[in-house]
């Protein structure tokens, strides 16, 4: 355990990143910006898993979970960007408000 950093520090850090991610998703109107916000949320969870696994000791469940999250984040980014690209070809914009036809 180095330099007096405790589990709590990691949890606070992950909470801050999680909140930043949520704020990004809620305030951005650019589709790629929103996807980056989602990425922040996923990484905040990763920090939690690693911190809990490190300070909990013993098994590797937390590390494995984090690896899977990274992998799935990549898969989600692939599909997300493919959809955004198709949206751009059809709407000529990636602003989510401008691309809104379904309402009500």
């Amino acid at each position, binding site marked *: 355990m180095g330099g007096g950093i405790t589990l709590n520090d990691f949890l606070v850090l992950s909470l801050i990143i999680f909140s930043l991610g949520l704020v990004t998703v809620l305030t951005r109107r650019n589709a790629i910006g929103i996807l980056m916000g989602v990425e922040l949320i996923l990484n905040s969870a990763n920090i939690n898993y690693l911190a809990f696994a490190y300070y909990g000791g013993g098994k590797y469940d937390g590390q494995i979970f984090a690896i899977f999250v990274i992998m799935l984040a990549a898969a989600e980014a692939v599909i997300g960007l493919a959809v955004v690209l*198709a949206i751009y070809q059809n709407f000529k914009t990636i602003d*989510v408000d401008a691309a809104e036809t*379904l309402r009500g």
Partner: protein
Amino acid sequence: MDLGNLASLKHFIPEMILVAGVLAIVLIDLAVRDKSRLGALALIAAAASLLAIGLEPALSGAWLFHRMLVFDSFAIYFRTLIALAAVVAIWMSIGSKEVKSCDQGEYYAILLASTFAMFLMAESANLLMAYLALEFVSLTSYILTGFLRHNRRSLEAALKYLIYGGVASGTMIYGMSWIFGITGSLDFSVINKALSTPGHLPVLAVFIALVLILTGMGYKVASVPFHMWAPDVYTGAPIPITTFLAIGSKAAGFALLTRFFFPAISHLAAGGSWTALAGVDWPQLLLFVCIITMTLGNLAALQQTNMKRLLAYSSIAQAGYALMGFVVLSNDGIRAMLFYLFAYYVMDAGAFMVVMIVANSTGREDVDAYRGLAWRGGIVPAVALTIFLFSLTGIPLTVGFIGKFYLLAAAIRGQFYILAIVGILNSVVSLYYYLKPIRLMFFEQPRGDEGTVRFEAWNYSLMGVLACATIVFGVYWSPIISFANRSLSFFTGPA
């Protein structure tokens, strides 16, 4: 029983059939020029998997793949329901005009892969497996929703689905990480043991973690406040996919929700009553979610003019009804919920089938396209839609009535009188918008610009089967309720 990788395969045959179907479709798609038979191949794979579930050896329960999945009668019920949903979705895809122009090989391969993922969701016994399965379902659903690549509505729906889904599942794993930190494990039965050990449990942290997890699972079943994606996605997606999301994805969501909130974090006393964790009052929270879900779904449906959107809000309301069985925290309630999900499968699939038949002939999905449907060649779909909508309302002699009856009975027996009253009031409200298309179809004359509805043997046959099932199971429902009864046992390991 804790089975290793090879020993588990014996209980994994339905899933393996689906995977074999996916691989076969991908390979044949590369080799053959005529893609028109790929749908039939997918249909055979889904039906074979359904058959394999029926032929599965009786077993009280086991962990598969080193405790990643659990094999028990609860999983059998949901896998049956999901396989049935896949059969309907593939059948509709074959008869759909919209899907004809798409890449057939990719479409059916992804549809089968999505079914496979939903199976895993119904069986997961570990938070990691639950997340992977849920995300697998989501990723395949995004692709299927946006499959009409040149259709603006389809793409917009895919983008909205993706954004809401990404946030919901991200929030869910953040909540799961807290559960992991508190209990030190991802395994459902270890979590249960850790949480039920008396001691200083951080009650507030557990409650917040459960709320966060509910975000991800509530998004899959489209309950308020995570329902916003549903109307847009249901409207934009191709109709067979809308149906698949409405019945399959929702059933898988309910399976995971039940498996997490009952065997993983609640305690089952002898006699079939569950108790929530002391100090963590999630049933109270879900009571509000349930009441708001049904009310909001029904009120928003009142002013819809697009049939798919109307059915989307109706399916939100139906999810609210099914949640009633969840809130009462008893085996009675779970049984009622299982039965209601079956009833919902039959009637909602049927309603979407009629929407597709009308859209195939006229290219329209708005409610006005149904004006005088009975008098311009569509008397059979008009009668069928009437049956399905009556059943969705909960009118006697239909399966929807029996389903609602069980739910209300469970609510009253659990002394949740407010829930029962709200449920009945909501049924009355829903009658208004369900009757609107019926009135248009029978009591108004066509204006002449609606077009005629052609006879399509393929689509009519499935519509007929679903309409008959709605009536038959509304009169003779004992096979389903006894199936639901048998499915109430969760395998949680040796006591």
